[in-house]
């Protein structure tokens, strides 16, 4: 049986090599021409604790981490009891026989990962034993894996060759164990090697790289899961002359420092999660009112309050779009894949510069730790924008126009007061009714320059549309593809630009009889916003702390369409 993809879950204790094996498989697969995606969960304790990571590799772009497992790799017994239920009917178990014995199971292959690695003279090659076994299970050719190992370990050190050899040996030892058992789960179709360069990274790194490319030169942040890795990455990689990065003492310090930096000419960014975001409320209102460019990344986790720090959710949409008191509605970009994380970060910085105000990059736990392959961006083709800077004399009225106007930078001409109270042209506080009206119009006009976001469309003529957002894009697209294959008549619309939404997309959506919005929250936050825009939207919600499975989505979409057709669905 020929297979398009292979879904493997690695499960065990934190520290047993769960993550390195899963990422190793993804790397090997990508390098050999497959597409790959990993999905990671975390134990809540610091050392040890049950954890698992899933890798899916495919000859096609990977849209979700996959519902049912082809292979479950168990690093300990608890992993078996927790996860064997997720195995597909034909699924196979590979387990660490040094940890436990699995009897009475035909399709279970016990391997002593560490002992085999040790026998190659390279104790760190245990993950290669596992990868070799997996390769054999789907009859993957060894030569492409040899190539992967050779490339990976050619690092210009004297012992490169030795290490390469031991790793290849480890793989073959793993293969042999499977061969000996004569178990196979079919042949994974050979990949098509792409003719472009590829990178493999997670969503948080993609955000960092996008931000750096866009010119972020001021970063202040406070640790919080799952955004901490952005702070850590920036601390390591941003320092350079005229660039500033610093761990500050709270999220309030972070956001207000960004206001100062954005005012003084920097491209300023911070990253946080829900609890930190809530503390930035007042500062974001100030940035909107005083018209200061800056970017806040919210990597969503389970909420409310301290919530579920290690679980994924999409429940910060309303509070990031409307983060503070008064009339305010911030630009929000929510990427749907690792590749989109990169582009969302570039655009977030560009938008902030373009409209001179705060922009939200709304990511989520599931993206932040997901490794995914993508074409290596050609940076020279990803445009970077800079704010219009005032060159006028001192008489300049910074706030007077009804549209985006050149921004004076301290030290340069056009001194004014950047003011969080209502103000006149030079930023002096005022209470005049006409000024409040004028400035309100100015603030809302300015966002119109951001109405150039693009969106995806398929089967545009269908009266029913499927419209996911953020990380729910992938599983929804996979479900959509299957629904279309099975003859369903459904349109697809998707954008990462949640505010302002592309105007043409709103127009399209308004014409639909029914818009189904899968999203990971209780209230159905995006469909609420769509309904407020005059769209007949209704949500398909889930709030388990986990992403949707494709199977569930297909079932629920069919069910909603059915009840709509029977007139039972009330919007």
């Amino acid at each position, binding site marked *: 049986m020929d297979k398009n993809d292979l879904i493997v879950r690695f499960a065990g204790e934190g520290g047993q090599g769960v993550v390195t094996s899963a990422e190793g498989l993804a790397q090997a697969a990508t390098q050999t021409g497959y597409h790959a995606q990993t999905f990671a969960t975390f134990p809540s304790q610091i050392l040890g604790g049950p954890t698992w990571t899933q890798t899916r590799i495919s000859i096609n772009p990977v849209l979700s981490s996959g519902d049912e497992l082809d292979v479950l790799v168990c690093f300990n017994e608890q992993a078996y009891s927790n996860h064997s239920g997720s195995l597909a009917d034909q699924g196979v178990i590979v387990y660490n026989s040094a940890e436990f014995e699995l009897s009475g199971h035909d399709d279970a292959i016990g391997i002593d990962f560490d002992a085999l690695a040790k026998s190659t003279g390279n104790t760190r090659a245990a993950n290669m034993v596992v990868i070799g076994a997996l390769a054999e299970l789907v009859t993957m050719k060894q030569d492409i894996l040899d190539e992967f190992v050779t490339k990976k370990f050619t690092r210009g050190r004297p012992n490169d060759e030795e290490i390469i050899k031991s790793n290849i040996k480890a793989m073959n030892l793993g293969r042999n164990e499977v061969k000996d058992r004569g178990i196979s789960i079919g042949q994974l179709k050979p990949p098509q090697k792409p003719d472009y360069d590829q990178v493999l990274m997670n969503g948080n790194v993609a955000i960092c790289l996008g931000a750096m490319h866009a010119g972020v030169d001021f970063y*202040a942040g406070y640790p919080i899961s799952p955004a901490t890795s952005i702070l850590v990455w920036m601390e390591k990689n941003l320092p*350079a002359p005229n660039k500033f990065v610093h761990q500050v*003492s709270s999220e309030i*310090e972070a956001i207000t*420092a960004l*206001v100062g*930096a954005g005012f003084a000419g920097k491209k300023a960014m911070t990253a946080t999660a829900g609890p930190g975001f809530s503390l930035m409320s007042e500062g974001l*209102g100030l940035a909107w009112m005083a018209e200061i460019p800056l970017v806040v990344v919210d990597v969503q986790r389970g909420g409310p309050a301290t919530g579920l720090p290690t679980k994924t959710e999409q429940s910060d949409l309303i509070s990031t779009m409307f983060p503070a008191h008064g009339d305010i509605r911030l630009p929000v970009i929510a990427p749907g894949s690792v590749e989109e994380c990169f582009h969302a970060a570039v655009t977030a910085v560009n938008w902030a510069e373009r409209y001179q105000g705060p922009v939200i990059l709304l990511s989520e736990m599931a993206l932040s730790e997901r490794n995914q392959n993508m074409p290596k961006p050609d940076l020279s083709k990803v445009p970077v924008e800079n704010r219009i800077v005032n060159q006028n004399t001192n008489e300049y009225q910074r706030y007077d126009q009804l549209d985006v106007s050149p921004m004076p930078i301290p030290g340069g001409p056009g001194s004014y007061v950047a003011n969080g109270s209502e103000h*006149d042209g030079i930023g*002096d506080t005022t209470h005049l009714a006409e000024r409040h009206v004028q400035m309100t119009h100015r603030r809302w006009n300015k966002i119109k320059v951001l109405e150039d976001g693009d969106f995806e469309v398929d089967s545009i003529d269908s009266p029913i549309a499927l419209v996911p957002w953020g990380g729910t894009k992938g599983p929804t697209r996979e479900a959509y593809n299957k629904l279309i294959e099975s003859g369903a008549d459904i349109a697809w619309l998707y954008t990462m630009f949640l505010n302002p939404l592309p105007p043409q997309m709103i127009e399209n959506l308004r014409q639909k009889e029914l818009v189904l919005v899968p999203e990971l929250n209780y209230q159905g936050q995006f469909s609420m916003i769509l309904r407020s825009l005059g769209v007949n939207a209704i949500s398909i919600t889930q709030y388990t702390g986990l992403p949707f499975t494709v199977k569930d989505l297909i079932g629920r979409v069919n069910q909603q369409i059915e009840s709509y057709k029977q007139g039972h669905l009330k919007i």
Partner: protein
Amino acid sequence: MSVNNPEYDFKWCPGCGDFGVRRALESAIQKRHAATGIAVANNVVVAGIGCSGNMVHLLEGDQPFGIHGVHGRTLPIAMGVKMANPELNVVVVAGDGDFLSIGFEHIGPQAGRNLNVCAVVMDNGVYGLTKGQSSPTSETGMITSSTPYGKIEEKTNPLSLYLTLGVSYVASAMSSKVKSLANTIVEAMEHPGFSIVHVQSPCTTYNDTYELLKGSVKKGIEPLAWPIPEGHDSADIKAATELLNRGGIPLGVLYKDTTRPDFQSRIDAVTKISDSKSTEELLASFAI
């Protein structure tokens, strides 16, 4: 900017101490300009919310840049401005409520970094703009609109706090002594690190302490404020602490430490040893 601006409708009450602080700040900025030739537009005034913070709109003459943010956040905003462009001269203007109540948390971190900005704190022992509630520097027992039976907490001693938090330049001043205040502000602006000029700036409407501070021979009131003796060694933190133990309000430079690197130097030290890879190189490290 307010003089010729009919839209701006705030005015300090007659006799308000902030008038004196304004004249001193205007003069300090002018002096700096005269001495260095650096344009006034190179100054940024970061204002708190309060009668005191309204200073940023009331400065006359050549205009610095200003940022009038939210209540209590002058210091982190100032950090953003200064670290964005270390060439700028950044001055904070804030009241005792803004700086020592809601904004208190921000003093310690800036002291630990030795951020090179100058904070001018206008202490009137009351919340002026919200019409007379108690502040951290209100006297215990003081009757205000929010403490109709007398304030029950102990009074904050800002000067000794600044010292303990590690602020590297601490001066105490009176708003009515404009000339000397101006000179102190100039010195504080020049100080290579975090400086605070804590000014007694009485609120004539809700807490008129002029008489208490200056004393009155007629009424037999000893002045609370007294000049720091010439011989005081401002490099000696113990001597500074002892001055404070004498009670009353010492006027002058209490403490000045020029040996600690300022924040920018600390950042520069990191920049020197850090891997500075281009985005392209970093991206390439994820190539498969």
